[in-house]
Every structure is written in structure tokens, then in C-alpha cells.
């Protein structure tokens, strides 16, 4: 009788098959959202992150909630909705501080930096990215992605120099230093996307310095990484960059070929602004080459697009 009592106690402690908890469902939704984000399906990713957020809030899972808020903000950035992105990332910053989660706080500041830039406030964007970098630095972490963003903000400011600092000997030198540091970090961490971003930003610096051979080389390296990754926006930017460099190097035939490829990629990806930009380049280049027929041909396509869309739109670089 005693043996039976002990045996039943021991078996009673054995794990039973249990139904998934709310937290596990939240994790599941979040992971499915990450999958959609990786497939550039940002609208679907947004819905799934929102579901995960609701579930995490329902059980007061603050760490999960923090991850969801940052992910939602990044999805909104991809959808060019900086207002909603800003709303979410501000909540994420507050929550990260309350949880003393420095890693997530740095990620939130980096995301917020992009939001401020999208809102047209470059100075605030620079402030936020510096906060993110300094938090990481305190923990001994160096992120190539954050350095890339800071360098691009400096380039965008027009001087490529830090505010209130003495200008370096060469324009955009500070930005260039940051980019080379980011490049080596990204290569070491095997982060292909950020490596391509570094190359692309370096190409931009070379363009601003009118060093066209360097610009072409950097854009080509970025293109070699972006093409297998399959992001049409970045591929288009790389092709346009290579085309512009070729044009500056008095190689119009290569330039029109690359502008043509940029047109094909952007048109098929539904990137209206970039399609119009590539068409404009094709028209101008063909006119300069004296090929009126081709210029005419692309002008007609351009006019048709303008008639359908109203305007080119978007940010052209």
C-alpha cells in the first residue's frame, strides 16, 4: 500500500502534455511576422507583429512587448509611414528604459533616428543615432549598421562632418572614416546587407568628390551583394549609380545600358519614382548621344507614365 502511494506521487509529478500558452502564441505570431518581413511583405508582417503585441500585453510580457514595438516601428518605416513608426518607437524607448534593457534601447534609438530623418529633422536624427552608438559602446558593442546610418546622416547634412567639429582636410572625410570602420565590422560579422550599405554609402561619398572610378567600383561591389539578396530598390540604386559613374567617365553606351536595366528592374518591381528617374536619365543621355529616335521612344513612355500617375513622386538620388 505504501509502495503504491509513492509510485502514484512520483507519476503524478511527471510532465503532462499542455496546451500552448498565450506567450507561446505571441512568440509564434512574432516569428511569423519576422518571416514576412524577411520576404519584404511588410503589410503582413505588421499585422502579425500587432497580434503578437496584443497577446504579450494581455499577459504583461514586457520583453515580448518591447520587441514587438520595435519590429512594428521598423515595418512602418519600410512602408514609409514615419508617424506611426515614431509613435511605436517612442513607446519602445520608454519601455526599454523601464526594463533597463540597453541592447533594445540602442536598437530603439537607432530606429528612432531613421524616423526623425524621415520626418525631415536631420539634426534630431543625428542626436538619436549618437545615443544608440554610445549605449552600445558602454557595453563594448560596435554595430556596423549604426555606423552606416550615422555616416549617411553626415553625408546628407552636406559636409559629411560632425556638428560643431572642425572640418577635416577633405570633405566627407569623417563620414568616410565611419564607413570604412563599419565595412570592416560588417565583413567580420558576415553581415552582407550592411556590407552592401557601406559600399553604397562609400560610392556616394566618391560621387560627391567626383571620383568616378571609385564610385563605380563601390557601386559594383554593392551590386554584387544586393543582386543575390533580391532587393529591387537597392539593385536599382546600384545600377543607377554605376550608370551615372559611367556617364561621368564619358562612357555613354555603358551608361544607357545600365540605365535601361535600372528601368526594367524598377518598372517590374512597381517602383514608380525610380522608374521615372531612370527614364529621365535615359532620355537625357540619348539626347546627348544624338539618338533622337531612342530619346523619343523613352519620352513617350515617360509621358504615358506621367499621364497615368500624375507626377514622378518619391525621393530620387
Amino acid at each position, binding site marked *: 500500500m505504501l509502495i503504491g502511494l509513492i509510485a502514484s506521487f512520483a507519476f503524478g509529478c511527471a510532465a503532462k502534455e499542455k496546451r500552448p500558452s498565450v506567450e507561446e502564441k505571441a512568440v509564434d505570431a512574432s516569428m511569423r511576422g519576422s518571416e514576412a518581413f524577411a520576404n519584404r511583405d511588410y503589410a*503582413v508582417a505588421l499585422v502579425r507583429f500587432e497580434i503578437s503585441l496584443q497577446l504579450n500585453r494581455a499577459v504583461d510580457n514586457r520583453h515580448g512587448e518591447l520587441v514587438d514595438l520595435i519590429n512594428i516601428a521598423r515595418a512602418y518605416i519600410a512602408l514609409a509611414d514615419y508617424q506611426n513608426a515614431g509613435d511605436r518607437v517612442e513607446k519602445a524607448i520608454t519601455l526599454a528604459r523601464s526594463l533597463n534593457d540597453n541592447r533594445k534601447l540602442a536598437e530603439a534609438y537607432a530606429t528612432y533616428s531613421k524616423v526623425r530623418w524621415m520626418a525631415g529633422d536631420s539634426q534630431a536624427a543625428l542626436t538619436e543615432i549618437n545615443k544608440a552608438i554610445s549605449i552600445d559602446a558602454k557595453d563594448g558593442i560596435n554595430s556596423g549598421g549604426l555606423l552606416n546610418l550615422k555616416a549617411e546622416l553626415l553625408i546628407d547634412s552636406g559636409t559629411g562632418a560632425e556638428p560643431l567639429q572642425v572640418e577635416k582636410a577633405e570633405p566627407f572625410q569623417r563620414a568616410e572614416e565611419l564607413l570604412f570602420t563599419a565595412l570592416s565590422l560588417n565583413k567580420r560579422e558576415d553581415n552582407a546587407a550592411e556590407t552592401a550599405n557601406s559600399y553604397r554609402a562609400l560610392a556616394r561619398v566618391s560621387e560627391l568628390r567626383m571620383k568616378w572610378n571609385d564610385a563605380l567600383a563601390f557601386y559594383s561591389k554593392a551590386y554584387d551583394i544586393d543582386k543575390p539578396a533580391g532587393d529591387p530598390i537597392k539593385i536599382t540604386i546600384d545600377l543607377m549609380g554605376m550608370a551615372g559613374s559611367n556617364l561621368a567617365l564619358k562612357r555613354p553606351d555603358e551608361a544607357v545600358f545600365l540605365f535601361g536595366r535600372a528601368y526594367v528592374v524598377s518598372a517590374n518591381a512597381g517602383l514608380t519614382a525610380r522608374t521615372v528617374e531612370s527614364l529621365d536619365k535615359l532620355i537625357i543621355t540619348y539626347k546627348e548621344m544624338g539618338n533622337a529616335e531612342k530619346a523619343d521612344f523613352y519620352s513617350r513612355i515617360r509621358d504615358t507614365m506621367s499621364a497615368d500617375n500624375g507626377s514622378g513622386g518619391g525621393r530620387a538620388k
Partner: protein
Amino acid sequence: MDRLKDSDSRFKGLEIKIGLLVLIVLVGIAFVVISLGIERGIFTKKYTLYFITESGEGFREGMPVKLSGFNIGRVKNIELAKDARVTVYLEINNKYHGWLRSGSVARVIKEGFIGDAVVEVTVGKPGTKEYAEGEMIPFEKAGGMAEIVNEVKPVLNEIKEIIHYINDPAGDIKKTLSNVQNVTAGMLTTREKVDSLLDQTGTTVKKVQGLVDSVAENTGPAMESTARIIKNMEQISLKLVPTMERIDRIAGNAEMATQRLPAITDKLERTIDNVKGMSDALSNDAPRIGEILMDAGDAARDGKALVKGVRESWPGRLVAPKPRSPELVPFDGSLMNVERR
């Protein structure tokens, strides 16, 4: 002179015989001649008509004259008039007089594709005056090869002009083709835009699908548990049937048991006395039962900790499922692909 006299009986009447023979031959010849003449229409009555043509080319004396494929005469004579035109005289068999009336025309045709040329006359309008002897019949000029070539030449020239017109780069056709090409290119772009619209529609549909998924996710578990409850109830109701049967059996047995009750009661009393004796012995060990139960609880907790330790050690990690945690989506450090206000 007597020696020259022929006295053989076979020579008697020889002159008559020869004469007869000659006569027969002559008659035969005459018969053949006349037959031939009749066959060739020599004795047929004929009348003459004529027509005038610009050129005597293709005409010859003796050329047949036909009506609806029947030979009705021949060309008798061809003469050159003072105005350099040609008069052709036709000798027509009287038998066909009735067909050649006002409205009949003469023309030259070829019999078959490469046959000889003949003069064909057509039947005149019924009820009209027949052509009389020596009257003129109108001549209808039918196209020979030269006429055909002359008719084709302007057509070929026109064709040349049309081809030139089509090939002219500054011409309407080329311009129209060029415009069609441009429209086609525009249509391709339109098609590309339609594709992108479809993509956007697809994205919107996916959005809606995502919302539907979320609703399904929220309601799914509730519906699943409802389904499970219903299933369980079904199983329970199925189990109830044999239970009811057992209850019936038990009720039957209970009846039997009550009949045996007095004997059982006696046995029970004896058993109770035995149990009392055992419980007295057990009560001496009662304090130890609580300790035993507590030890069992500790052992269970230790077992759980041991299992956890095994799971977290490297061999255990290989078989134990990894706990999942949500991750941040990658941060993109580029501004080039971002739209700005």
C-alpha cells in the same frame, strides 16, 4: 488482114466489156467525188458575210467558222482595204442562216489553251432580222497575248507605285507602323503598371488575409475547444450505454445480494473484529506515515531538478526542444532606400 482477125470466143464482145468496166470505174469515181463533195459541203449552198478588223494577224483563208462549237463555214477570203484595215469574208452554210441575226458578232478565239484560232460567231437576238448575203457582221476584238500584256503593264506599274509607297520611310504606312510600335511599347508599360497594380492588389489581399488569419487565430482555439467538448460529450454518451447496462446488472445482483445478506452480516462482524485488531497494531506506526509522504514529495522535486539538469546539459540539449524567443527584425543602416517627407 485475115490473120489480124481474132476468132477466139473469149474476145467476142470485148469492146462492150471494156466499155462497161470503164463506165463502172467512172461511176465509182464520180460517186466518190460526189460523196466527198457532199461531205465537204461542196454542193452545200452557202452565203457570204464579211467583217472588218484592224489587223489581219491571226486570220488565214480556210480558217473554220464556228457557232457554239459547230463548224458552219470557213474564211473564204482576206483583203486589205484602202484604209489599211482588213476585210475578212466568211462563207457560211445556208443551213445556219437562221442563227445569224442582228446581234450576232464574230470574234477570233483559240480552241483550248494552245489550240488553233478559229472565227466564232455568236447567235443573234431572237426575232431580229437575219443577215443577208453579203452583209457585214460586227467584229468583236478578243484579247490576244499582246492585248493581255498591254492590259497588265499599267497594273504592274500601279503595283510598283504601291510598293514604293509602302516602303517610303517618310510615307504614311511606315509612320503608321512606327506609331503602332510606340503604342505597343506604351501598352507594354501599361501592362507593367497593371502588373504592379496587381502586385499591390495582391499585397492588399495579403493584408486582408493577414487580418483574417488573426481573426482565425483568435477564434480558432475557441472553436477547437468547442469541437473537443462536443466530441467528448459524444464519447461520454457512448460510454453511458454500457454503464446503464451494468447498472441494470448491478441492480439485479443487488437483489440477489440482499437475499444473502444475513450470512454476509455474520462474516462482516467477524471481519470487523479482525480489522480492529490490525488498526490497533497500525496506530503504533501512524506518526511515521507523514514522514514517508514528505520524503516522497522531496524525491519528486529532486527528480524534476535532475531532469531539468539533464535537459540543460549538452547531451540533453540535443534531444530536448529549444525554447523559442522573439527576435528583432534586422536594422537597415541605409537611408538611400527610404522615402523622406
